C-alpha cells in the first residue's frame, strides 16, 4: 500500500454521548500513519476498524462541502485538509468546532448559523423579476468580480470557531453571515441591499467585530470575512452620517 510507513500515529478524540456521559471525555486511538492521509481518513479508520460509536460529519472529503470542520490541536480546520504528516509524531487532538453546542462527539449544533443566514437573506432577491421568456440576468465579468471572493464561502463555520467575539457573544451575526450578506449586496442582479444592511449594521452585526482577524486566517477558501466586515462598517458608517447630516437626501 503506497504511503504505508508501518508506523502508527496517535489521535486524542473528544467524546460525548449525552445518554451516558454527564461530562465530555477524551479517548486515545492509534491509527496507521499513512503519508497521504488526512485527519478525516484517520477518523474514518477509527469508526470503521476500532470504534464504530465515534460520530462526526463529513461529505465531499475534498474541501468544498464545508461539513468536516473540527478543532485540530486547537485550530479550526477542515479535517479533510489537515494532513497527518504535518502533525506526526505529535498526538493529534480532535475536538468539535469551538463556540457551538455539542450534540454528540464531534457533531455540533449549528442552528444559530443557519438562522443567521436566513436573517441575512443569503440568497439572490432580484432587483427586477424576469420571466423565463425574458431571458437570463446578465452580468459582466467586472460585476462578477465585485462579489466573487465572498461567493466562495462553503459555510464551514471555521470562522465562527476562530472568532473570540462570537465565543463571548453568540448573538454576534458573525463573519460568514456578514460576508454572505455582502456577497448578495454587491451582486448587480440583487435588489435587497437595504434590508440586508439593516440586519448586518444592527448592534449585533458588524459593530460587534473588533477586527481580531482570525476568521480570515482560518478560512479555507480565502473569503476574507474580516475584510468584508470592515468594508461593511465603512459603508454603513458613511450612510449613517449622511442620514444624520443630510436627512433630506434620500437614496
Amino acid at each position, binding site marked *: 500500500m503506497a504511503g504505508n510507513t508501518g508506523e502508527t500515529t496517535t489521535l486524542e478524540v473528544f467524546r460525548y454521548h449525552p445518554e451516558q456521559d454527564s461530562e465530555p471525555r477524551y479517548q486515545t486511538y492509534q491509527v496507521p500513519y499513512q503519508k497521504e492521509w488526512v485527519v478525516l481518513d484517520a477518523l474514518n479508520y477509527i469508526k470503521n476498524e476500532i470504534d464504530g460509536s465515534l460520530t462526526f460529519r463529513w461529505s465531499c472529503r475534498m474541501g468544498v462541502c464545508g461539513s468536516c470542520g473540527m478543532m485540530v490541536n486547537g485550530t479550526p480546520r477542515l479535517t479533510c485538509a489537515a494532513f497527518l504528516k504535518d502533525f506526526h509524531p505529535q498526538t493529534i487532538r480532535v475536538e468539535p468546532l469551538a463556540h457551538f453546542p455539542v450534540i454528540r462527539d464531534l457533531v455540533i449544533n449549528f442552528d444559530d448559523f443557519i438562522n443567521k443566514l436566513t436573517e441575512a437573506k443569503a440568497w439572490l432577491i432580484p432587483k427586477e423579476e424576469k420571466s423565463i421568456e425574458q431571458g437570463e440576468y446578465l452580468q459582466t465579468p467586472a460585476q462578477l468580480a465585485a462579489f466573487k471572493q465572498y461567493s466562495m464561502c462553503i459555510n464551514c463555520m471555521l470562522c465562527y470557531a476562530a472568532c473570540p467575539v462570537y465565543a463571548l457573544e453568540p448573538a454576534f451575526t458573525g463573519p460568514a453571515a456578514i460576508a454572505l450578506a455582502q456577497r448578495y449586496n454587491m451582486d448587480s442582479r440583487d435588489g435587497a441591499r437595504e434590508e440586508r444592511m439593516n440586519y448586518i*449594521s*444592527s*448592534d449585533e*452585526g458588524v459593530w460587534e467585530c473588533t477586527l481580531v482577524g482570525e476568521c480570515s486566517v482560518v478560512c479555507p477558501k480565502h473569503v476574507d470575512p474580516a475584510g468584508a466586515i470592515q468594508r461593511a462598517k465603512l459603508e454603513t*458608517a458613511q450612510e*449613517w452620517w449622511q442620514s444624520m447630516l443630510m436627512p433630506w437626501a434620500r437614496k
Partner: protein
Amino acid sequence: MHHQRSREPLWWLPFSGGMMVDALAIPALVIVTGLLIPFALVNPESFRNLLIHPLVRAAVFVIAALSFFHAAHRLKFTLIDLGLKDAKIALGFICYGGAIVGTLLTAAIALGLM
C-alpha cells in the same frame, strides 16, 4: 424580523479618525519629544513658541481629541472582550465620557482658557 441600524457609527467616525491621525503623526511627534529634544536637535524655545501658535494648537487639539476617542472606543471593546459585556452601556458612558471630558479640557487649554 425588523432590524434597527446601530448608532455605533457615531463613535466609529472619531475612532477611525483617531486611528488615521495617530498612525500618521504620533511616531514623528514621539521622536521629537523623546529623542530630538534630549539630543538638542530641537531648540526648546522655538518649540515652546510652536506650542503657542494657533495652527499648532489646533493640530494638537485634533490629534489629542481623536486619540482620546480612539482609545476610549478600543478600551470599551477590550473590556467587553475581557468579560464585561453586561456592563456595555456603563462602559460606554465611562469611556466616551472620559474622551469627551479630555476633549473639552484640551479645547479649553488650546483656547488659552486654562
